[in-house]
């Protein structure tokens, strides 16, 4: 399945914030987690993650720090802030509302799922 790129772009911010809410992380690992969560269906070109992370940093949603873990390369780690958590909560509310509305209309009488079920 190919997910429309506008939808991918809209989902990117809450997804990244939610992943960082699980714990601080660096770019490559964040992207791997996105693939894992979406079963590989949510794809975006790797490089685009970084302008997004920098935007979240500018907005004060994440803090960053360069660190060298005991084994491994020097990496820039991102951690979510309180502002970031607040933004994530707000995004969550919006997405829940959208998915609920879509779910209702698709399940409802004459909805898409019914038609497919009958066919």
């Amino acid at each position, binding site marked *: 399945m190919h997910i429309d790129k506008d939808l991918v772009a809209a989902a990117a911010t809450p997804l990244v914030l939610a992943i960082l809410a699980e714990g601080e992380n660096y770019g490559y690992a964040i992207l791997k987690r996105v693939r894992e969560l979406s079963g590989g269906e949510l794809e975006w070109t*790797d*490089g685009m993650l*970084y302008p997004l992370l*920098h935007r979240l940093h500018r907005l004060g949603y994440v803090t960053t720090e360069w660190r060298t873990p005991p084994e491994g390369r020097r990496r820039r780690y991102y951690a979510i802030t309180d502002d970031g958590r607040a933004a994530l909560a707000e995004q969550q509310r919006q997405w829940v509302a959208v998915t609920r509305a879509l779910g209702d209309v698709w399940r409802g009488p004459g909805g898409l799922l019914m038609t497919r079920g009958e066919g």
Partner: protein
Amino acid sequence: MSDVESQIAEWRAYVDKAPAVDDRDVDELEGHLRDQIAELEVAGLTADEAFLVAVKRMGDLDTLSWEFAREHSGRLWKQLVLRSEDPPARPWSRGFDALVFAVAAAVAIQVARLAAQFPQEEPGWLLRNAGLFVLPFVAGYFARRRHLDTRGWVLTAVPFGLAALVVNLYPFDEGSSTELLVALHLPVLLWFAVAYPYMDGVLRSHERRMDFIRFTGEWVIYYALIALGGGVLLTLTGLILEPIGANLPERVIEWVLPSGAAGAVIVAAWLVESKQRVVENMAPVLTMLFTPLFAVMLTVAAVTYLVSGVAGEFDRERLGVFDALLLVVLGLVLYAMSAREPSQPPGLMDRVQLLAIAGALVLDMVVLGAMVARVGDLGFTPNRAAALGLNLVLLVNLAGTAWLSLRFLGGRTAFHRLERWQTSYVPVFAVWAATVVVVLPPLFGFS
């Protein structure tokens, strides 16, 4: 160096060329590339194959650097360059546009001068309308440059039309102080009217407001440079012409100075637009140089005023001095802001700047307090009302800035909030200038 290493180095060099991607970002991207290559190699790909796949996944580098430029627009102030749809091939035609508008402004001011027989006569209308002879041409230049549609052109013209009506229909007393205030505030108000075409008609966008603030700051620098050069030129011309005719230098200055000053307004705007990078390097230097000096001066002055209680002696007619002081401090704040990389953590310069703001605030409030205590004696004059109003407008702005800087230094808010505060505040200045031009004169009976 292995084959893949040299390929990575080449890739890195290519990414590095993008102006909005700085070294740390390239480090980050390179780290990502290496992680990806390592993982693909574990999965069984050869080093070469892994490199190719990893680069492909990273995405098209032109798109990527464009995204970086969009996010880090402040870093290089690139978005105007990016936004413009014109083919970049004809830079001279833009310069030609600017030249046409500059000459038009120069001619307009000259016609007005001859009609008023300035400087033999000094009619009030010339003074009041001064801004209207120049700034419409700046607005026109930007409307043309941004390719505004008919509606955009009309909306650009409306504020100028209204201003012309107000300024010329109000029955000012000849040489009154309300007239002088209007002459001083109208150019400021019209400058905000220029913001409309400059911002492409998108007045709500905070990013474009920040662009306009940057533009204003850099325009000031360019205009000051042109004025300095022009001053030297005129002085030398005067000295050389003096032996030829006794009043020849005065005649030359009468003709050259107004037209030069008017034309330079548009030329400076054009320079800011097309030579952004040059000033980009100047604003940080100026801020670095003057912020500490102002911090020292203001702190010493604030302490002296507090200790000696000399504020009570301050001549209330000179509240304007403190307006100028707050304006300069605000200017420094804005220059620092436009030169700053928003994602940097708070540093020494931010502390020094906060000290300067705090000094200015304390100083201003001490003087203001002393003045308000005595204002009952003589009541308000137009000058005092205007000076006091401007002072309050600036005071609120700087107090907000100080508060947010404090929170930023304490790590409790992002720098972004400070930018937002300034961009949200822009309309307040416009409204204040409009108040002085439109409301104040009738309030004081045009006296």
